[in-house]
């Protein structure tokens, strides 16, 4: 949600007329055209709207757009009342509850609607959060911090470092868990990044978001947040995970390991799926169930190891039929220190690219490969092409899917300037990204099953 509630969104013709009449958003205005006359509250205009309509809210509550021509008369009839909202009093903090900090990086995990103008305002202070999601006060003593205010597509590796450092600070202060509210688009990248940056965690770090904006009654935000705070406060593991809906029903919140989780659907609530792995746990009806015994245990005595540096001199090159091999050279010329190839099938890239790949490696660029199949493991010994790539020094990323492999390459090159050391880090299992065995888990998500799960 954009934070532009105060700017009217009007431009051009419409803005001129409104300015001339001295009308501001929220004022009651009368618009008179040759044939008709309307009275209502002036509403902000979407930035993509044209310049020849003004939007008013009629007494009935409906908005309409009125076309502005040179003949249109606009008068201010009344001044808009400023909305007042008293935050509810902070509920009593229950001393026996775990302490959880909720950091927000953007998106609105909780918000309120101004029905008068239609503006959506985010509710991020602790008292706002308790007001909107009152259940939280029975789950944890919550502190909040607004770290960033970004759409997730605008988050960069520098922000990952910042989030990692802030998390480390809260952990040093002794919280029982950290919840990070994040836009869902690149949440899985951030989850992978934090998995590499925050090692030997004493407490859980839970990323959470919403697929339906929090201003609507059907939003998944509150259910996800409640599940995340429960896991942060009480779960027995200490890893970076994403907590979101398990199915399209508002029942279970599933906890997916940060290095193995991917956004797999553009719009569904259960968009996040573990790839080549099972989820590590589930929160259902206040109950936390671990789904595997293979996880790092919560232990406040553990000493966090913070490694928050990432290199942005890394590129992802997706192989496709007809790929121009010079794309690889271009990246090298631009100073790229690592290239992640998104190969086909078991791990292949056309022989036409061999020359530029060889060139890159010779110049000290670390070249790794993950499969665009997403599910399954790379095996470059089966066909000639794979063997040829291995011989040229391309590093196979096993069962790591491309996005996590990319983040790991950025992290490895952030830790060292030495290509060989970076390669060694790349091949080391740092945060559960490599699984030793490939199990026959479901590929993708069979809509029917998930939809029927309740």
């Amino acid at each position: 949600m954009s934070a532009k509630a105060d700017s009217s969104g009007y431009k051009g013709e419409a803005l001129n007329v409104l300015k001339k009449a001295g009308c501001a958003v929220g004022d009651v205005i009368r618009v008179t055209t040759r044939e008709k006359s309307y009275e209502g509250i002036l509403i902000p205009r979407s930035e993509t709207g044209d310049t020849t309509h003004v939007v008013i809210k009629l007494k009935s509550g409906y908005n309409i757009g009125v076309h502005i021509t040179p003949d249109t008369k606009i008068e201010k009839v009344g001044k808009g009342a400023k909305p007042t909202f008293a935050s509810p009093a902070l509920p009593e903090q229950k001393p026996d509850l775990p302490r959880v900090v909720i950091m927000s990086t953007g998106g609105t995990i909780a918000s309120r609607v101004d029905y008068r103008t239609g503006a959506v305002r985010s509710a991020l202070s602790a008292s706002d959060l308790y007001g909107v999601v009152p259940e939280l006060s029975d789950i944890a003593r919550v502190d909040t911090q607004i770290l960033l205010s970004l759409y997730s597509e605008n988050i960069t590796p520098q922000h990952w470092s910042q989030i990692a450092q802030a998390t480390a600070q809260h952990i040093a202060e002794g919280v029982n868990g950290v919840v990070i509210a994040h836009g869902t688009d690149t949440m899985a990248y951030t989850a992978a990044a934090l998995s590499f940056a925050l090692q030997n965690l004493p407490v859980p770090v839970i990323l959470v978001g919403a697929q339906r904006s929090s201003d609507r009654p059907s939003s998944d935000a509150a259910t996800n947040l409640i599940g995340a705070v429960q896991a942060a406060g009480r779960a027995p593991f200490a890893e970076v995970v994403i907590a979101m809906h398990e199915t399209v029903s508002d029942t279970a919140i599933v906890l997916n390991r940060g290095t193995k989780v991917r956004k797999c659907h553009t719009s569904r609530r259960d968009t996040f799926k573990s790839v080549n792995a099972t989820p590590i746990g589930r929160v259902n009806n206040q109950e936390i169930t671990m789904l595997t015994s293979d996880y790092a245990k919560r232990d406040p005595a553990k000493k966090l190891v913070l490694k928050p540096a990432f290199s942005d001199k890394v590129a992802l090159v997706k192989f496709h039929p007809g790929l121009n091999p010079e794309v690889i050279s271009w990246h090298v010329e631009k100073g790229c220190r690592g290239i992640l190839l998104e190969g086909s099938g078991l791990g292949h890239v056309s022989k036409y690219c061999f020359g530029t790949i060889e060139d890159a490696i010779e110049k000290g660029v670390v070249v790794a490969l993950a499969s665009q199949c997403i599910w399954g493991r790379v095996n470059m010994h089966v066909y000639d092409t794979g063997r040829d790539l291995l011989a040229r020094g391309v590093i196979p990323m096993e069962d790591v899917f491309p996005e996590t492999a990319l983040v790991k390459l950025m992290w490895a090159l952030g830790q060292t300037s030495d290509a060989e050391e970076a390669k060694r880090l790349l091949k080391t299992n740092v945060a559960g990204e490599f699984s030793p065995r490939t199990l026959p888990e479901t590929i993708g998500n069979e809509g029917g099953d998930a939809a029927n799960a309740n």
Partner: protein
Amino acid sequence: MQIDYAKIGLKVGLEIHQQLATAAKLFCNCKPDLFKENPEIVFLRRLRPTQSELGQIDPAAYFEFQKGVRIRYEANRETSCLVEMDEEPPHPLNMEAVETVLMAALMMNAEPVDEVHVMRKTVIDGSNTTGFQRTCVIALNGCIKVGDKAIPIQHASLEEDAARKTGDEDNGKIIRYRIDRLGIPLIEVATAPVIYSPQEAQEVAFAIGKILRDTGRVMRGLGTIRQDLNVSIPNGALVEIKGVQELALISRVVEYEVQRQLNLLRISNELKNKVEPSCLTEEIVDVTHVFKQTKCKVIQKALEKRHCVKAVKLTGFAGFLKCELMPNFRLGTELADRARFWGRVGGIFHTDEMPAYGVTAEEVEALKKAANANEDDAVVFVADTAENTIDALKAAVERAREAISGVPAETRAANADGTTRYMRPRPGAARMYPETDIPPSLITPDLIEKVRLSLPEPAEKKRERLIREYGLNDKLAKQTVDSEYNTLFETLVQESRVPATVVAVFLTETLKALKRDGLPVEQVPEKQLQDLFKAIGTGEVAKEAAAEVFTWLSTHECKSVQDAVAELGLKMLSDAELTMAVDRVIAANKQTIDKLGKNAFGMLMGLVMREVRGKAAPDRVSGLLKERLK
């Protein structure tokens, strides 16, 4: 009760909703159809009241949320996609639907808006998966003439229909909805509250319904049209009545509502002299022990489930709960409705109706004693879970308090007999905010012009044309144009080649007569009428059998004209069969024929037709009869 509505100051406003016959739903490409089979997809949701900037929350919504009420949605793949499931943003507004509303709006002399903005109207009873209904105003400030009176039309809007409730589970903790209906486009036409009598309300509704049907682009049949009424009388309250499905019921609904409000006012006047609202306390007592040996089936069943019986005293209410407000509807019924809504119980008992239902006089005495009630007091009691009984009795007490002060403003739902029941408190100020997922749509002068050119022919012109082109007489042409089947008439004639007069008589006089006899005429879809007339055209069905086939179809859903013919034994006779029938009649009347000669023809024709009516066309019979008589 004879009521002078003008004198008591009745005011009624109408909101007419009708489904549009578009190819797809309003915000996605699903078929606008309902399904009867078991659902293929089921999912469970909660809706959370969102706070407005003023921190207001709809009380009913908040209550349901606090009680942890969840909604189980049912869907199938043919009629729903991720859009109805609230798992995908809506697609752009269906312009076919916009054009249909625009057409109706122009027919009602309304002014189209320049730019359409889709709004979200908060509704969190579960009937919308999103928690809001999407709605947009297409035109404003219309006016129609009903008789000599001008009725202002406030707006013509386009909105999505809601999911339909199919039941509940787990003592009301889960409500079940089917989302097939969700997203079917609806037109909403709202009049100003300038209607002053029940009869007038019905006439205005009829006039609007006629305009909508004349667009030729709305759905037909039960459940496709719903009227909401706003009814108020001075000193009473503004009561919103939702979902009157039948036009003919409107005047009765208004009459009953006026009766109800007048009776409530009378009761209030009497109670005011007797009881202070503060005398009604929520001292709820457990009376399970009173009913340990009860013969009352309902209570027995509850106790088998280890539920309890709780009771509350209503000070000074003895005798009032049995006061009738509408036919078969007493003040006690009002309390019961509230208890059902807020307490999820099946119903309540009260002492005004006791002893009854297997509850003995001794039990009533013990109950009154336990509730500390004297003979001036009433006691309300209910058997269910502890939580539900407490919620139910609190709601009953609240309703009793309101009875002292007068008529509560509320939203009610219409029953099939014209009475109404409590539905929910009246929502606060319209809680609408913009649907940001859908860009505004322009209504350009070009679009308006295009729709204007496709407007249906004005009634007067059409009447003249039907006389000219189809040879209908003046009366039949007028009846056809005024009928619900105005738009269907020409289609039927052109498709079937059945004489126009036959079609017109059937659509007007025959159907009117059938309807008068109580036949659910509107349940037969247009498609079946088309099939029926095609069959008449090909000679498969005799035109004399049309009413019989239609009658059968109206009570046999999903059956075809061919099924009707087979079931009713109306298959046309073959030449050989008909010849046999004719010969039989001739043989049986040999003497008469000999006596009368040619003059016997009329009588014989009558006798044969009596035998073969509906199975052979008269001209065929007369030809054959002449031939066999030679």
